[in-house]
């Protein structure tokens, strides 16, 4: 900008503060990231989900990948789907490929929501009814191969 910017020293402090905050958050993440991996329970659940996905004709990840990502409790998939924030997160995922303000809702693929339903049924069946109720409010279609 040819006019009016903050002086260099102030800008430097903003950059340094931002950098330090990012490093601190990354370190907190490193120490607190609680993924439960490779436990017997996680592998058993992952095998169950794998079989359910295959039976439903959906692409199934390797068992160890499922176990890594979902642990033995389903991780973030098993958060209360009726919570406004979780519901908002689900709805925000049914959008076009934009990463900026051009993000716009589309008609979501049915396969993916079915896969999530199977995941919930495997890891946290008590959440399934809430999720299915949420699905009932969505119009879906077969847009993936």
């Amino acid at each position: 900008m040819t006019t009016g910017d903050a002086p260099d020293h102030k800008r430097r402090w903003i950059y340094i503060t931002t950098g330090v905050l990012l490093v601190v958050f990354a370190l907190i993440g490193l120490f607190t990231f609680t993924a439960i991996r490779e436990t017997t329970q996680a592998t058993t659940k992952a095998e169950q989900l794998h079989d359910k996905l295959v039976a439903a004709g959906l692409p199934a990840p390797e068992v160890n990948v499922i176990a890594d990502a979902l642990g033995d409790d389903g991780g973030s998939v098993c958060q209360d789907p009726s919570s406004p924030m979780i519901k908002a997160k689900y709805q925000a995922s049914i959008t076009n490929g934009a990463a900026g303000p051009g993000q716009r809702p589309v008609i979501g693929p049915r396969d993916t929501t079915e896969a999530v339903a199977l995941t919930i049924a495997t890891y946290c069946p008590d959440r399934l009814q809430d999720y299915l109720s949420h699905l009932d409010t969505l119009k879906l279609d077969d847009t993936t191969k």
Partner: protein
Amino acid sequence: MTGTATKVATTTKYMSWLTLALMTTSSVASLRSAPTMAVYGLACVFLYVIPAILFLMPTSLVAAELASGWQGGVYQWVSEGLSKPLGFLAVWCQFAMTIFYYPSLLAYVASTFAYIIHPSLASNGLYVAIVIITVYWAGVYVSSQGTKTVAGLSSMGLVIGTLIPGTLLVVLGMVFLAQGNPSAAPMDSSHLLPAWAGLASLVLIVNNFLSYAGMEMNAVHVSSLKNPAKEFPKAMFLAMALVLVIFILPALAISWVVPAASLSLTAGVMQAFDAFFGHFGISFLTPIVGIALVAAALGGMLTWLAGPSKGLLLIGRSEGYLPPFLTRLNKHGVQQNMLVAQGVFTTLIALLYAFIPDVSSAYWILSVITTQVYLIMYVLMFAAAAKLRRDEPDHPRGYRAPALMALCVLGAASSIAAFTIGFVPPSQFGAGSPWVYVLIVGGGLGIVGLLIPYLFYRNRRDSWKFAVPEGQQA
């Protein structure tokens, strides 16, 4: 105007074209959408390339020519080419579109932090509110420190949060294939095109034009360049290439490793990244990449905070469309009061979005209304470019877009197609009557895109006018 309004510090430092290119890329592209598009496998290439040919290319080349000939952003271009009221309408449309961008972005930031620290936090209201308020208002503070600060942070956000993790994803994806693993998503020619599900597929393809919305937005900072006529087109070309690479390659890499249909979409972006890194036994990278993605999202947010409101400010000052309270500048020459007013409104919407059941469905309808409004700006921009080329063929331009008239027709037709498809109800509208949806979107469009700017125009006052220094027109 008195006080801080006219005491704008002056510096001789310029922004480099490379910084502007990174800033533009940061405002449009990020890895946030990669898992969503990985669901479509190889067809994600089609879903990004076709809109790039039909919308990104016309938008970028036309904006490059306009910015190289008329310093400033859409207001200046449309005012010169068509009329001042239409110029105001154009910049208003650009500004209005951003308001509904922040809530979903802030919710994404909150849920990403939660995923890293403890997933149950994502449904904790107090936590979500603290993240939304802190992050957004920190962004407003940074934006009020001037364009160079914004440019620096958004460029760093792009490098740290998009380019480095994106490269990592692509390299790991290639290693995965080189090890002889079969791709999780079929990569044969029969999967080049997305599944055809009639209207639903058309909605997806045409709405993807909007993936590139905003390529012209940073033209408002063109006066920050030393040689705008030559440097702005260079910045646009680099940004175009980066945006395409960032959108396509990481989405493909994820689809090679993780059957995305099973894990990513409603499960969330971070789950897909975790599954990806889990395959390579490097899950410890997930929280680091999560923080990096947040940095990129915030960098993008800063550019959108700083850009369109500046355009609105300058037209507000030069034509007296906005009351002086809103157009007052701080000592860094930034529209601080306007940012704060916008901030109050945005924070409120973001908190409602994250807290009130069923608001998220309504939110997406409002979001459609504002992107519809934005498409009006594109049609005006293409019309102005065509008219300026015809009426002022000898006006000096640093860059002349090849076949400009054809580009304008293509760009305007794409914008109109995206506008039309905006009237098709999305998933979030559920089983409601399509006609009710059309009425809501049409009514909202009339209010946000026509009535509000008309009221500003009608209530303009000569006493609200202030001189805008040469070279700073929006």
